[in-house]
């Protein structure tokens, strides 16, 4: 019985292996490469929104941008009247699309939209679609400060039937804007809004370097949220420390110019030089004394 089980297992494995190889051979022969067409919605500082369209394909286990691909971006329906913009993708495979003013009425009237991108078929890729469903939303940052704690209060609201209502259970990142990235304000990586669309996070980064006046920028943002997309807001706060600019460059030091020699070095060097050369001059005076004695004889 055990032998039979082993045999049937081996047969099944062989069949699966052969089948996989056959399917693999078929697919490599005729199919075009797979294209990823991503559409992301961005709203910086509750201001002018834009859509970022990215085209990618896998080459040698890496995703790289696809260039020279004709892509059309539509609002709600892929029809000519809803065409926002067509473009030829560049080497990076990324294109930032701003909504034209001709769509203002449509944009103002509705709360939710769908952005649809369509990449036209070519020799390498089939026609590919990508879309992003977006609900209009906004983020507001506020702060309060007591003697011991500093809090960042973030409110997220979304538009529903023409009214701004709290957006609950929205995952947010709250951070300080730094030169090369964002630094979380506390131990938490993300924060989630409550039923009032609000979240309060304690600021735990003491002695953080700010600008010349000690200010730095707080950032609250959603990242690839299903309905809100990527929206973020910033606020300048005076919670940092002003950098102390090193002005010692012009001080007296060992690495300064000759006119800025340290006083202790001047004192030591001149003391030694005066001591030694004073003695030499004294010796020369002794020589003159000897000479004088010799001439008097």
């Amino acid at each position: 019985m055990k032998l039979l089980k082993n045999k049937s297992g081996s047969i099944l494995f062989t069949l699966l292996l052969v089948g996989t190889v056959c399917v693999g051979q078929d697919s490599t022969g005729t199919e075009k490469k797979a294209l990823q067409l991503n559409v992301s919605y961005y709203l910086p500082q509750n201001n002018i929104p834009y859509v970022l369209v990215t085209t990618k394909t896998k080459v040698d286990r890496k995703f790289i941008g696809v260039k020279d691909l004709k892509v059309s971006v539509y609002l709600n329906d892929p029809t000519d009247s809803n065409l926002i913009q067509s473009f030829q993708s560049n080497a990076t495979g990324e294109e930032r699309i701003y909504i034209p003013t001709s769509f203002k009425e449509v944009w103002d009237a509705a709360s939710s939209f769908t952005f649809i991108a369509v990449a036209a078929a070519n020799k390498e890729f089939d026609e590919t679609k990508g879309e992003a469903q977006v609900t209009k939303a906004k983020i507001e940052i506020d702060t309060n400060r007591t003697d011991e704690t500093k809090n960042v209060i973030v409110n997220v609201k979304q538009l529903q039937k023409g009214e701004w209502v709290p957006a609950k259970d929205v995952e947010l990142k709250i951070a300080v804007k730094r030169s090369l990235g964002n630094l979380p304000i506390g131990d938490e990586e993300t924060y989630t809004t409550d039923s009032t669309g609000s979240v309060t996070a304690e600021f735990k980064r003491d002695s953080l370097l700010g600008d010349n006046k000690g200010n730095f920028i707080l950032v609250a943002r959603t990242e690839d949220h299903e309905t809100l997309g990527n929206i973020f807001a910033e606020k300048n706060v005076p919670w940092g420390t002003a950098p102390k600019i090193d002005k010692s460059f012009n001080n007296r030091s060992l690495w300064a110019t000759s006119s800025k020699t340290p006083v202790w070095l001047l004192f030591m060097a001149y003391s030694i030089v005066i001591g030694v050369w004073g003695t030499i001059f004294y010796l020369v005076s002794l020589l003159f004394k000897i000479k004088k004695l010799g001439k008097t004889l």
Partner: protein
Amino acid sequence: MEKQNILSADKVIHDLLPQKFGLRGKIWTATLIIICLIGAYAYFLQLRDGLVVTNMGDYVSWGIYISNFVFFVAISLVGSLITAIFRLTDVHWRTPLTRISEMIAVSAITFASLIIIVDMGRPERLVNLFAHGRLQSPIMWDVVVIGTYFCISLFLLYITLLPDIRIMIKAKEMVGKPFSKLYRWLGSYWKGTEAQEKIRNRAITILCIIIIPVAFCIHTVTSWLFATTYRPGWDSTNFGAYFVSGAFLVGAGGVVVAMYVFRRVYKLEQYITERHFEKMGRILVMLALLYLYFNVNEYLVPAFKMKKPEETHLSELFTGEFATLFWFAILIGMIIPIIIMVFKKGRRPLPMFIAGVMVVIGAWFKRYLIVTPTLLHPFLPKHDAPERYSHYFPSWQEWAIAMGSLAGALLIITLLARMFPVISIYKTLTDETPQK
């Protein structure tokens, strides 16, 4: 008894007065002048075409010139060892050696000053060092201290010569005319009175006291030119003492060589006796052991830690490109001379002369090894540098200038020995314990 003393004094004067060059002396002097002229021509080429005639480059910017400079500075230290230290410690047998060591010191420090100018691509810019010099730079300290040591060494040689100059003026029939005017110009005012002698003795004592710290400074500051630069092989707190001990060794070695040569050439066996070689042999062994001790410190400690940049440098010295030269310098410069001189038979004149020559030659190559390999192994990796930058061998112009400077130093000693007694006549006559 009185007559015998007078006769002895005449013999001393006759034996120790400077002598005209014989055939060998003339050939020797002519050879030195020819080598100097070749060096001068090479320097003319360097002045005309720039430092491009050398094989120095971006990495080895201090080549044979600077190692030669360090060698000259080292050997010049002997003036303070024999004259000052021996006088202050009341070593009676020093008399036949002091003048020789003072002459070596003056000639060596003269060429140390000159060779540093040779290393400059634009020597006329030396004036900028004084016009815009930074007191923070060890190079500035070195210039000041070399100038000071040169003056003190010259002063010491001159003031100890005064009584001998009077003797030479008196014995002009024996000395001959060539330098009589020079002698009168230099010391006709010296009458040898008690008052003059008292002042002269005071001056010599002060000079002997002052020359010791200045001599230590000159070599310590020279070592700091290296030690204050962050490089493998130079990054050491020990460098000052290491250089000073090496300088005492090569200086003493140089005196031993000069003692032997003058003894043979001027037939001074009654004045520079075997006893002097015996004593100098003991000192030389002690100095060689001391320098060996510092060498062990300098190489063993970094070799024990073997930090990566040090590893490359030390491997090149111990087993790499410079291994032959390194072990040659250690063996010839220290170990073999120690083995020779540690035995009584080895402290006789000829073995001592051989040991002295070994010490001097070993010391010259040792300075080359201190300067060059380190420059070839910088801490920062070499980037986009031509292959030739990774090696250094001096060009013929560099060799000619370096050899010309060595010949120049020997020429100064030779000329000084021609003009002045190599052993103080006055001191030999007045010594309480004469060696004759």
